[in-house]
């Protein structure tokens, strides 16, 4: 993740609006990864996600004078991306069966995790193996949309809870509930499969936070 830098952004925006248009490239660069993956999470299609990403950055550029600095720049940009994605979904809605807001947070928090009596750390180096990345992507893409979007912003793009809530226009409490359910679903789905990626030597996951 790229750490947002409000002073750099404010200075950049001021200069772009004053005519140094080329600075827009540097302004948007730290956001472009998050834009794409948020769009992919909503649209579930690479071509559509890239197409809407381009529309999003153009919209950001055209509306730059309307950014008031009340939220983080990235939050504002990702809100625009989300709106663009929802607009695109409405256009292609007959291609989708599930409704956008069909899932609610009303379900009870009860679930049974994958029960393991021991757990070995899967080192991130294991990601060099393609299958591990595939497993993770498949599990995340298989989540219901409301959970997938939260996981994408909080766990993959590492926005904080407040920013995640602002982009998705839901309460922080809802973010926490969805995050909890999403992680629980992922743990249940992935933990038994991931065990195969644990190193063979006896190296156990370290202490608790």
């Amino acid at each position, binding site marked *: 993740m790229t750490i947002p830098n409000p002073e750099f952004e404010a200075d950049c925006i001021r200069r772009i609006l004053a005519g140094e248009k080329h600075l*827009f490239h540097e302004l948007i660069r730290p956001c*472009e990864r998050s834009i794409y993956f948020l769009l992919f999470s909503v649209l579930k299609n*690479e071509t559509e996600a890239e197409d809407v990403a381009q529309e999003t950055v153009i919209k950001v*550029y055209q509306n730059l004078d309307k950014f008031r600095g009340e939220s983080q720049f990235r939050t504002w940009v990702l809100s625009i991306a989300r709106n663009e994605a929802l607009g695109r979904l409405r256009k292609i809605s007959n291609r989708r069966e599930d409704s956008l807001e069909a899932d609610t947070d009303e379900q009870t928090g009860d679930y049974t995790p994958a029960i*393991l009596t021991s757990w070995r750390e899967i080192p991130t180096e294991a990601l060099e193996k393609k299958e591990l990345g595939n497993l993770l992507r498949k599990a995340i893409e298989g989540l219901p949309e409301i959970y997938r979007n939260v996981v994408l912003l909080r766990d993959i793009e590492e926005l904080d809870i407040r920013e995640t809530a602002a982009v998705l226009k839901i309460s922080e409490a809802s973010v926490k509930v969805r995050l909890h359910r999403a992680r629980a679903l992922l743990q249940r789905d992935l933990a038994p499969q991931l065990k195969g990626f644990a190193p063979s030597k006896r190296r156990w996951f370290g202490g608790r936070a």
Partner: protein
Amino acid sequence: MRIDCKHVWQHISAYIENDVDPQLRAEIDRHLETCEICSAVLDSTRNVVILMADDRVFELPRGYSERLHARIDRELEKPPDRNI
């Protein structure tokens, strides 16, 4: 008060986020000291969270950034009155 496994599971995500009050945290920690199952559930959940944050799991399509900036360049080249 002694909390049970189900209670621990309900707070796993918040525990990982460091978003549980100190008293509950202490109770969970006490439970984890003796419960192998909950320790494994916590560690596996946390491991999934750590793995997801790795940029290698989700990679941008090849050429995405180049195409995006080429599109921006086309927009920037437009005369100012067409930008608004």
